[in-house]
């Protein structure tokens, strides 16, 4: 279960940017907010892998295209253009507004039970094929490299191994992230492409509706809702059951009923 009232209430990890009290000693240099931590990691990625706003724009626009199809999401029929992306204000450079996830008030829940019990229920069975978990340090300033594989690589390897598949077998991804650059590195570290290849991988709407590999089909945490990992997990389950509202989603990939990747 995840419920959140970030819009009307308070979120602890956003406090650095929304409360006037300095969070730690680094504030003496003007450092505030998690956005800044990820912005610095993204900047190093730009330096090492020639990634950057051109690719991140693709990620933001493709997710918005999915959101435009989702009547329950925050940006139904509300498109995002290249100009919208590049003309938006900086949050902490190199992140502009649409590189960042939204905040929302909502709750979501997912029930996990045995296959035997699930088969007796009304809804179609959605099976968890594999699981993995890994955690890296949250103190990004002291990490030995801000661009080396994140814990998604270890967690992903565990889950793929348990499921007996590789990234090549995955038909669609419903992932959890906070910024466009983390969508990039999460897919990289799951093994969808190698460091430095992200620009090509995300090009030409590859993750958009009607595309080769749908990513964040509700609009995700940028354009549907920010309900932590429950946004992607519940969307994935609904897609696999075929219960989401729009037939166009099913025609796109939901009817294939194959393999889905959650983060």
């Amino acid at each position, binding site marked *: 279960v995840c419920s959140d009232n970030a819009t009307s209430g308070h979120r602890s990890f956003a406090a650095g940017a929304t409360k006037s009290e300095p969070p730690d000693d680094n504030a003496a240099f003007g450092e505030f907010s998690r956005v800044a931590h990820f912005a610095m990691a993204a900047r190093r990625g730009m330096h090492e892998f020639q990634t950057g706003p051109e690719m991140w724009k693709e990620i933001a626009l493709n997710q918005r295209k999915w959101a435009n199809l989702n009547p329950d999401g925050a940006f139904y029929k509300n498109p995002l253009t290249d100009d919208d992306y590049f003309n938006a204000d900086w949050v902490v450079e*190199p992140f502009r507004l649409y590189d960042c996830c939204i905040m929302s008030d909502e709750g979501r829940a997912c029930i996990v039970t045995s296959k035997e019990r699930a088969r007796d229920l009304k809804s179609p069975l959605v099976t968890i094929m594999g699981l993995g978990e890994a955690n890296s340090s949250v103190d990004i300033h002291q990490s030995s490299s801000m661009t080396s594989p994140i814990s998604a690589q270890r967690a992903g390897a565990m889950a793929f191994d348990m499921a007996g598949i590789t990234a090549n077998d995955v038909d669609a991804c419903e992932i959890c992230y906070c910024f466009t650059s983390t969508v990039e590195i999460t897919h990289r570290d799951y093994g969808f492409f190698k460091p430095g290849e992200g620009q090509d991988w995300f090009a030409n709407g590859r993750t958009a509706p009607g595309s080769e590999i749908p990513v964040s089909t509700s609009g995700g945490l940028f354009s549907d809702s920010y309900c932590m990992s429950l946004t992607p997990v519940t969307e994935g389950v609904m897609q696999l059951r075929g219960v989401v509202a729009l037939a166009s989603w099913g025609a796109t990939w939901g009817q294939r009923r194959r393999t889905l990747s959650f983060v």
Partner: protein
Amino acid sequence: VTKWIAASGRGKIYTFAVYHVAFHDAFKNSLPYVTAVVELDEGSRILSTITGCDIGDIRCDMPVEVIWRTAPGGFVLPDFTPATVDT
């Protein structure tokens, strides 16, 4: 293991971020400004700020050196500025 060393005050910019919005009133008159992770020649990294140059000229791996700044309240802080001599 933690130990004290005498650092040269020289290093290079590992990465940086540019603030165009002040998240605290104390920085309203400093916009835009930069925070950076500086990798010292001795190997340690330190969170600091970069001053004394155009923000558009700042790059990762750029050589920098310390300049000491007395902040309001009397705190002395290690800022960094582009190096006068390559390190």
